[in-house]
């Protein structure tokens, strides 16, 4: 099972329109990704809350069709 990187980016963008997103396909198998998501919406949230927002954007695909998404989240630098 796999998920396309563009599809991941599209889903995150839909929930966090301002997000700067970088996605790397770690193993080249379309199943192990690393994503960096930078969004002002993360401001004031804990890391757990930030990751939960990204997982929510992926609407249940995380842990299902998407096995591994190493996630780094942050707020844009002023």
């Amino acid at each position, binding site marked *: 099972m796999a998920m396309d990187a563009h599809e991941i980016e599209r889903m995150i963008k839909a929930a966090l329109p301002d997000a700067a997103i970088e996605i790397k396909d770690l193993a080249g198998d379309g199943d192990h990704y690393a994503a960096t998501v930078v969004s002002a919406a993360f401001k004031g949230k804990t*890391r*757990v809350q930030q*990751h939960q927002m990204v997982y929510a954007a992926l609407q249940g695909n995380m842990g*299902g069709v998407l096995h591994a998404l*190493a*996630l780094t989240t942050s707020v844009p630098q002023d």
Partner: protein
Amino acid sequence: MSDVNARIEAEVKNNDVVLFMKGTPQFPMCGFSGQVAQILGYIGVPYKGVNVLEDQEIREGIKAFSNWPTIPQLYVKGEFIGGCDITREMFQAGELQALFEEKGIAVKQAS
């Protein structure tokens, strides 16, 4: 469902540090679970490993309990700390060691 929530709650209340993982601390069955086990081992903090592969009810239940879609999941004093990425980030920043200190959990090795 409420039964499994009660079981999970008991685990995280009765143990200072609980790692819900695939496999055991000695034999992790997934690279992500292994990384967290390795970090906890390095810090030298005693913890209870709960092998979700042996308990389908907990494997699904913990995801709803924490609102977190993946395994591993680390709990300290009943509080959800994060999965593999957050635990590693915190460890590298020295925040994880500080957290154990702040919560009064003894570690073997000074950080």
